[in-house]
């Protein structure tokens, strides 16, 4: 611990702290833009490049960036002098002088750190106007829009993509006024091995990276009298969407969510959790099959499209080990366009399946060729949690005041196992619940595998199911996935089953979720909400979901049947690793 003074107040902080941390400790805020810390994922982005956090330090000739200046014994800091405030204002002025001031029509409107800063610093006029950057907007993929004219060069996306995800798409390119962050040769993302996880979008403080907005397509479908429009909503959406309406982080808003979707005009409101249960049926069958033959292990989960694209590019040698089960979103689509369409007597092309996802990669996933039949996509439109919130606002749905409603059946019925798909470790735990029951041949009462839960990037555990020791591992965040896979390739570790999620923490931290702006406490609250939701469910094992059982009886036959294979399984393609 060291002692120092900030704005004439004494503060004691850890010797490894920064001036910013010390100031925040005593309730003094210093604005930041480029700085990003995701403590629970050990991500620390201390670029020190935007310079809006400059403060005065006695004895130093220049202003110092609070975010990366280490504290020293006896240091005397002033954060609010004329000199510091004017400097910040000038920095902001410069940033805005090379920034399209399009707030009113910007994806980030109301959620933008730069906009907020401009509000706080009360800059009323831009003094230093001049030439502005001019980049073409990258609209060439399903998931992400890159409008680098709004980029402030904080490089947070670079850290997200390269350090955290180790996908390695983004790099600073060129230099000086022309410097910007882009893929190689400044190609569009669609030309690269980007997995569309959207973690760069989540990291971007401004509107330079944003989600491809599909709300207009949804409105059009909803207003088309020839179409039947059904919606599925992913597990992680219900514990986050409330944040967009001022509800406490960690609020379970399932009932309100259903009500809101009905307000918007969807014909049926279904649940991806139903399909998550279905996924477990297929994946567990596969797992038990492999365990029995003791071959092709470990099995890797495959419900995260970001992860799927990642291994297709970067670990093509391993493409035989992930489960062939489709993701819940795509299983839902496939079942909706066959079983359900048949049931209600609608042609698949007249049934529009909309997904509400925490995820940007799901937008891309739904567009993969193998996920359509006869030119009809299984999932037609994917919107993110944030897009759903904005639709509600557009339509005047006062979300926070809605009465709870229930999902429609049959594709809305789910177990607690389906819900926990939204958190890292959930898929594996859901699979373990079913595996244990099936291997033991009974309905076991011990179904909480708490050892696989948590936020840590790589976790492993040995669990005993029906007298069998299963070694399992969980990783979230692609950087961790890479480390785990490499250790397996090197033979340093052996597992039976591994769950991998592209986003650190799992889907609850997906690229389409409400922005957390570095506040990882929000993630923990979402996580706890998911497990609360699970605990509240009457049915907590996938194979006990009555509508799932019915689906197999009426339509699919057995898990792993030829029909199930045709509809619910997929193939992977090795792709270029550049």
């Amino acid at each position, binding site marked *: 611990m060291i002692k120092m003074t900030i704005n004439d107040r004494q503060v004691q902080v850890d010797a490894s702290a920064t001036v910013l941390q010390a100031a925040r400790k005593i309730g003094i805020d210093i604005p930041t833009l480029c700085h990003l810390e995701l403590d629970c994922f050990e991500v620390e982005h201390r670029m020190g490049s935007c*310079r809006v956090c*400059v403060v005065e330090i006695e004895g130093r000739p220049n202003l110092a960036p609070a975010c990366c200046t280490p504290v020293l014994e006896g240091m005397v800091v002033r954060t609010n002098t004329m000199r510091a405030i004017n*400097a910040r204002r000038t920095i902001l002025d*410069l940033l805005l002088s090379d920034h399209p001031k399009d707030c009113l029509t910007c994806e980030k409107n109301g959620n933008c750190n730069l906009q907020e800063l401009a509000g706080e610093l009360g800059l009323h006029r831009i003094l230093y106007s001049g*030439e502005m950057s001019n980049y073409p907007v990258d609209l060439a993929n399903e998931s992400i829009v890159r409008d680098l004219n709004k980029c402030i*060069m904080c490089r947070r996306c670079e850290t997200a993509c390269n350090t955290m995800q180790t996908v390695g798409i983004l790099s*600073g390119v060129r230099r000086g006024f022309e*410097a910007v962050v882009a893929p190689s040769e400044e190609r569009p993302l669609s030309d690269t091995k980007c997995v569309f996880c959207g973690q760069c979008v989540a990291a971007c403080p401004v509107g330079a990276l944003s989600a491809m907005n599909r709300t207009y397509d949804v409105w059009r479908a909803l207003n088309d009298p020839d179409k039947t429009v059904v919606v599925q909503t992913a597990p992680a959406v219900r514990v986050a969407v409330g944040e967009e309406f001022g509800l406490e982080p960690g609020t379970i808003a399932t009932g309100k969510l259903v009500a809101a979707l009905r307000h918007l005009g969807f014909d049926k409101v279904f649940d991806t959790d139903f399909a998550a249960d279905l996924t477990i049926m297929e994946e567990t069958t596969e797992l038990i099959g492999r365990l029995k033959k003791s071959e092709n292990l470990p099995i890797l989960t495959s419900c995260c499209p970001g992860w799927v694209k990642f291994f297709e590019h970067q670990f093509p040698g391993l493409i035989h080990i992930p489960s062939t089960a489709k993701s819940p979103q795509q299983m839902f689509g496939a079942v909706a366009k066959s079983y359900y369409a048949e049931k209600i007597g609608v042609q698949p092309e007249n049934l529009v399946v909309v997904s509400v996802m925490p995820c940007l990669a799901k937008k891309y996933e739904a567009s993969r060729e193998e996920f359509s039949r006869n030119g009809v996509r299984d999932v037609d439109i994917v919107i993110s949690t944030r897009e759903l919130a904005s639709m509600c606002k557009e339509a005047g749905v006062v979300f926070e005041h809605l009465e709870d409603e229930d999902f429609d059946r049959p594709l809305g019925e789910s177990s607690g196992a389906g819900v926990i798909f939204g958190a890292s470790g959930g898929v594996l735990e859901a699979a373990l619940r079913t595996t244990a029951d099936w291997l033991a041949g009974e309905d076991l009462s011990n179904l909480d595998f708490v050892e696989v839960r948590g936020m840590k990037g790589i976790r492993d555990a040995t669990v005993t199911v029906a007298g069998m020791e299963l070694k399992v591992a969980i990783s979230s965040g692609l950087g961790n996935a890479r480390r785990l896979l490499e250790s397996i390739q090197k033979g340093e570790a052996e597992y039976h089953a591994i769950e991998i999620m592209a986003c650190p923490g799992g889907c609850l931290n997906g690229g389409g979720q409400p922005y957390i702006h570095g506040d990882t406490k929000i993630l923990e609250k979402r996580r706890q909400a998911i497990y609360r939701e699970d605990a509240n469910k009457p049915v907590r094992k996938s194979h006990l979901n009555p509508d799932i059982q019915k689906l197999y009886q009426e339509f699919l036959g057995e898990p792993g049947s030829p029909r199930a294979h045709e509809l619910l399984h997929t193939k992977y393609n090795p792709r270029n690793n550049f």
Partner: protein
Amino acid sequence: MIENAKHLREHALELGMRQAKGPRTRILVSMGTCGIAADTEPVLAALREEISRRDLQDVFEVVETGCMGLCHSEPSIEVVDGVEGTMTLYGNVVPGQAAAIIEAGPYEAAGVEVLERTWYCPENEENTNGALQARVVLRNSGRIDPENLDSYLIAGGYQGLARALTEMSPEEVGGEVRESGLRGRGGGGFPTGMKWGFAAARKARDKFVVCNADEGDPGAFMDRAVLEGDPHCVLEAMAIAGYAVGASQGIIYIRAEYPLAIKRLRKAIEQARENGFLGSGIMGGKFSFDIDIKYGAGAFVCGEETALIHSIEGHRGEPTFKPPFPAVSGLWKAPTVVNNVETFANVPAIIRRGADWFKQIGLPECTGTKVFALAGKVSKVGLVEVPMGATLHDIVYGVGGGIRDGREFKAVQTGGPSGGCLKADHLQTPITYETLRALDSMMGSGGMIVMDSDDCMVNVAKFFLDFTLDESCGKCTPCRIGNKRLHEMLTEVCAGRGTQETLAKLKNLSHTIKDTALCGLGQTSPNPVLSTMLQFEDEYREHIEDKKCRAGVCRHLISYVINDDCVGCTLCARNCPVDCISGQRREKHEIDQDKCIKCGVCHSLCKFHAIDKR
């Protein structure tokens, strides 16, 4: 292979005797990049040819040396006669003069330009003739054959290293350097011994010694001259530094634009390894040290030490915030000493001759010498090395011979793009890191550009910003966008569109950039603006209020007009690139002002002074 320090001394002695017994006259030919560019090769060939034609190989030895620093008189050669003891410097030599030079031998050849030998005093001589220059850094450049290790050994090479390894502990070596008062010549002036001390104090498996040979300052070529003319001295210094801080690996980061320096360094490293000055168990002792070369790729900011480290690591050359300083956590997070070439070049002499000797040179608070690349409108452009505390006047008028073409001195720009301009009032100021900083300028690496009344100070400031804009890494806001805005405002002023508000904004923004930029590049980039605004306020005012550029440089503010002296010779009309001059032969011509691009061709061609520049 040199087995130990004693062996080295004996070997050097023996080499010296062998040389004394060799040809009596040595002809030193300045073969740096600069000399070669000035066509020294044919002169060299002619000298060799002449000697062999006359069969005088036993009398004359031709030595290709590095740069002598006599840019103004390249090709230059020096004839050193072992018997008469004479040393004759010839300048602007052409191949045709080879015969006369050989003919004259130790005596001054007729018809060849002889340069004053008082031009400088070498390190190993008493300065009896009041030479303004004292050569420590450049002690060997232009005097030895840089590609020949023996040549370096005769000049006392590797004696410093030998002394350090055999007579001193690492702490004592560091102490000697600290005691000498040597400060970093890369621009910052940070005490070298202190820097070494930080690195020495760290416990680490790996430590590195890095030589910063990036020399990106446009118009500076001191380091190049050292590397081309005396590469071994840098190797020796790095090994000494390695010993002092406990590093076993050295890296020279050199800009790719210096092919000759690279070639000579590679050769020197090889020779040093072969002879036991580098590698494992140097001079038969326990200390091991080796050196690698890494190349830059055209980025000025890579001269900044953290950027340089990133560049070595294979990254974009973007600086990072300090602390941590490289001496604590540098290359691959290991303690790393980064020093400039010129800083290193002082070290062997300091260890060989002691801190006390070094301290006598220069001023107490600022010891030793400084090399400047003197260029621009001065008569004798060249590389000069003067004791710290010499005045601008000494350099410009003493060494530099005053302003060329008898024009009037206007300003000296020091410190390159980080520096500022000094004017006539400052000619008597003794030059130190501090005095220059007090004048909003910088010592920088040693570029010194002399300007006369033909130079527009607003335009000069704009030129440096052009440079910064191009070379900014783009990482931090004030430098990336701020310098762009400064440049735009200066462009406005040069175009006659500036206002009082422009001036106020220029000043404010400059101060903010200085105050907030991440690295030294941005922190100093507004210096040329601030210092010209301070020293030449009236010129700015004229651009804004009178829409005039007194130097006639800013094109928007000048026009070319043909006066009545025109005799109608048509020369201008025939040469105007845009054909905007009309007129009949033998009649007064006229310039179409709307079309004229103000290239000035007509003005410089007219033999009748009939074109006025306004």
